[in-house]
């Protein structure tokens, strides 16, 4: 197969995939629960992955992912197809998870600055050779982790993160710097 033909096939496949996804979304917007189950199966791993990196806790992440899909059913009517669905879904997921996390963390937690994530203990049990970047990320203190995930992985600007997390833009930048300093130390680049 010539390269140009291959390119056309790839483009056509991409277009087809987009169309079938849009059809699925339209079916969900029309109230089709079977279509919603398909959409769930298609995106649960992405949604849970993001929830886990934001919460650094498997149980919280599962609850948050569940909450995302319950609220998504009510919110999907707002999706107009202006951006990629996965981009829109990641924004919805981030906002719901941050809001969920905020509710779970009580006043005492915030005042006492109990920022260490539960994943610290999990990491301590692993040898350094088996530790991957995700294990380091979930080990970051909460605010530094939220900013790092949203900026370095999800690609949000600090101005956007400031709104999402209810912190100043300067604080977002400072937390990102803190996250990188910790990662640099843990990854052996001192």
């Amino acid at each position, binding site marked *: 197969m010539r390269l140009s033909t291959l390119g056309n096939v790839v483009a056509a496949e991409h277009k087809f995939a987009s169309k079938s996804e849009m059809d699925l979304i339209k079916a*969900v*917007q*029309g*109230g089709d*629960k079977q279509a*919603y*189950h398909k959409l*769930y199966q298609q995106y*649960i*791993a*992405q949604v*849970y*992955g*993001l929830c*886990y990196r934001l919460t650094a806790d*498997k149980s919280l*992440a*599962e609850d948050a*992912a*569940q*909450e995302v*899909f*319950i*609220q998504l*059913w*009510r*919110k*999907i*009517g*707002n999706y107009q197809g202006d951006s990629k669905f996965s981009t*829109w879904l990641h*924004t*919805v997921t981030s*906002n*719901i998870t941050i*809001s*969920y996390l905020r*509710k779970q963390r009580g006043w005492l937690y915030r005042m006492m600055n109990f920022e260490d994530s539960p994943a610290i203990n999990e990491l301590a049990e692993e040898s350094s050779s088996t530790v*991957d*970047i*995700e294990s380091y990320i979930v080990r970051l203190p909460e605010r530094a982790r939220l900013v790092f995930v949203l900026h*370095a*992985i999800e690609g949000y600007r600090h101005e956007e993160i400031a709104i999402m997390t209810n912190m100043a833009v300067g604080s977002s930048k400072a937390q990102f710097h803190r996250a*990188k300093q910790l*990662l*640099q130390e843990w*990854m*052996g*680049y001192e």
Partner: protein
Amino acid sequence: MNKADFESDLQQQLVALNREKQPERELWSGIELALVNSPDVVNKPKSGKIYALVAGVALIGLVSLLSFHTAQKHPNGSDLIASLSAQHQQQKQALLVQFQDQPALTSNWQEQVAELDKAELAIKAALKNEPNNMALLKLLQNVYQQQISLIERVHSPKWSQI
């Protein structure tokens, strides 16, 4: 190993990071259960507000009707109170079902709803003696509107503008 090495290593690891992760717990059954209880909300993000608007218009209509009847002939205030209450209960239950799986912004909203329930009972007790007292009827209508508004407000998260 310098900072440039770290930046490069970090970038490589972030690019290679698997964004997908499967939850250990089965989540769909819980989601499905929640959807069963709110079947008609897809694509109607402002349905709650519409409910409140319709209820408000209906209540105003009923009170206006009573005012007209008061001027025209002997009214049946008890029937109106019963009608107002029934309509409010229906509206309230619909909202509570709609929002039952949605997190509330305050933890004590149910206590506030209960306090308004007590106010409703006190006004109804007074209306038993004076079923055609317009001030009391308007007060009852106001309590009902406050309750609907409260349920709506505590279940409207800030990110709903997305």
